[in-house]
């Protein structure tokens, strides 16, 4: 579990790492929107996805994000992809072109739909792994807290949520260690986590989950006391140790991603009315 490669923060000093966490979170949101919109025609959709893909590859190279991690995650999804394909093929569509496998009509549109979903998921994985691999948990929490500031005005305890998130991230390695320790302890008592039928496996997992929960609860109790002893009060004002200096490059990138955000929505709305790809081809006639 500790070798979980995808999205694990790697402390390098690249331009991607130096980019402000707030900009990166906004970029994540705007790219997600761009990825999940449809732009009217099949070729245009793939052109836009391709452009995003190229951009992300460049970002991954600059940020020294591991490709292998993303590929491994994709490999783990093959079952889901086949499932999506089957679903799309079996569900009757409106019509259009098709080819025959035996007597069964397979519509091109259902294949495109599957490809869209797979491609979108792949891009999503790339985007999130870039964000998490180049942003330290502390910066991410800080960024989220800042971006959720408007919620503070309607009395949502944003700082507390940010603290919870920071603590959750801080305790992942500790709980992983706990799990490994418990697995060894239970294995030495004869519990087999790797072999056996599904029912047996589920049973053996129970012997892991209960002590893990109990230790996590005890830890959280201790942690709460330790925090109180160091003067933490969720309602009180606190200063911040980690300050982020906003730079000109941050502003430029922010503008760029806002343009992508607005542009993709505009293109999707207009794409429903006009076939931009055909218009583009017509230019060359």
């Amino acid at each position, binding site marked *: 579990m500790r070798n979980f490669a995808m999205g694990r923060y790697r402390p390098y000093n690249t331009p991607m790492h130096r980019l402000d966490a707030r900009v990166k979170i906004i970029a994540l949101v705007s790219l997600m929107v761009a990825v999940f919109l449809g732009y009217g025609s099949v070729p245009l959709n793939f052109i836009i996805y391709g452009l995003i893909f190229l951009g992300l590859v460049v970002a991954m190279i600059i940020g020294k994000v591991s490709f292998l991690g993303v590929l491994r995650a994709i490999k783990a999804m093959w079952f889901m992809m086949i499932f999506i394909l089957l679903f799309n093929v079996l569900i009757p569509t409106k019509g259009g072109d098709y080819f025959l496998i035996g007597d069964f009509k397979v519509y091109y549109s259902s294949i495109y739909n599957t490809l869209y979903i797979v491609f979108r998921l792949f891009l999503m994985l790339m985007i999130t792994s870039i964000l998490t691999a180049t942003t330290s948990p502390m910066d991410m929490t800080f960024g989220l807290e800042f971006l959720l500031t408007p919620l503070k005005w309607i009395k949502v305890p944003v700082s507390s949520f940010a603290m919870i998130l*920071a603590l959750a991230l801080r305790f992942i*390695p500790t709980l992983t260690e706990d799990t490994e320790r418990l697995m060894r302890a239970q294995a030495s008592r004869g519990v087999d986590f790797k072999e056996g039928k599904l029912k047996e496996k589920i049973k053996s997992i129970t012997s892991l989950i209960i002590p893990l929960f109990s230790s996590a609860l005890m830890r959280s109790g201790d942690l709460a*006391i330790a925090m109180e*002893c*160091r003067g933490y009060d969720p309602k009180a004002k606190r200063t911040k*140790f980690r300050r982020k200096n906003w730079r000109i490059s941050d502003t430029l990138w922010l503008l760029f991603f806002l343009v992508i955000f607005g542009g993709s929505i505009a293109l999707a709305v207009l794409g429903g009315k006009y076939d931009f790809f055909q218009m583009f081809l017509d230019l060359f006639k």
Partner: protein
Amino acid sequence: MKKNSKKKDVPVIDDFAKGTAVKFEHVFFYYDESEKANGNYTVSDISFTINPGSYVTIIGHNGSGKSTLAKLLCGILEPCATSVKESGIYIFGEKMTYENYSRIQHQIGMVFQNPDNQFIGATVKDDIAFGLENDCVPASEMEKLIEEYSTKVGMHEFLDREPSALSGGQKQRVAIAGTLVRHPKILVLDEATSMLDPKGKREITRLIKMMREENPELTIISITHDIEEAYQSDEVIVLNHGKIVKIGSPKEVFADFETLKNIKLDIPFFQRLQDELQKYGIDITGVDDISSLVRLLCR
């Protein structure tokens, strides 16, 4: 304890506890009603006084109420109400109540047993900064304070390390730095060395010694299983079943073999040796540490 910030919170020093760092006066505590009904209090009628600048150890076997005592001292638990008017906990002469406990808590720093469960920040730096953030210290000052205190505990080169890359002793030193950086007047160590290996233990013991030399006004209260550590302190309080069995200087306390044996506590090696030698007519009273004892015996 819950806070009641609406009431005015002004320090009121009781003459009764003036000049003391900590004063427990007829303190009782129980976790649930059944304990009370049976008369088995977790902490029962505890009274003692600790002077400013002293180093006091509280010893006792498991379940003797040591850690509950520490939590009472820090205001995490509240003592039960009694009919005695003065009953309560006094910190620098001021009685701890609902209204003032968060202010009083500021004077007390606490280091716990499990090094992992008190490491709050993502890195050493963030962890030391946590208390300062709560105290609303400006970020520019934080940097200086973190430098200063991490150097004091010998963790300066590890400032950017994550907790998983540190040993238990190192984490405990970070916890001490994170506590001391808030300038407490009382430092409570709740079995701070019990989960450490011998090396980690030595590091912490050395650190305590250094802190005392550097700041003689700092009152240190250490709750411990380590009899050898207790032997180094100014005063020892022995607890059993929530009651004080013995209180006094280490020499006085550890001279009473029988009582300690009855409550299943160990006797420090030095004291045991002294006693055995005494049986053979060798008097080593006046010798305080192992090296001078070895010198005396080899003569």
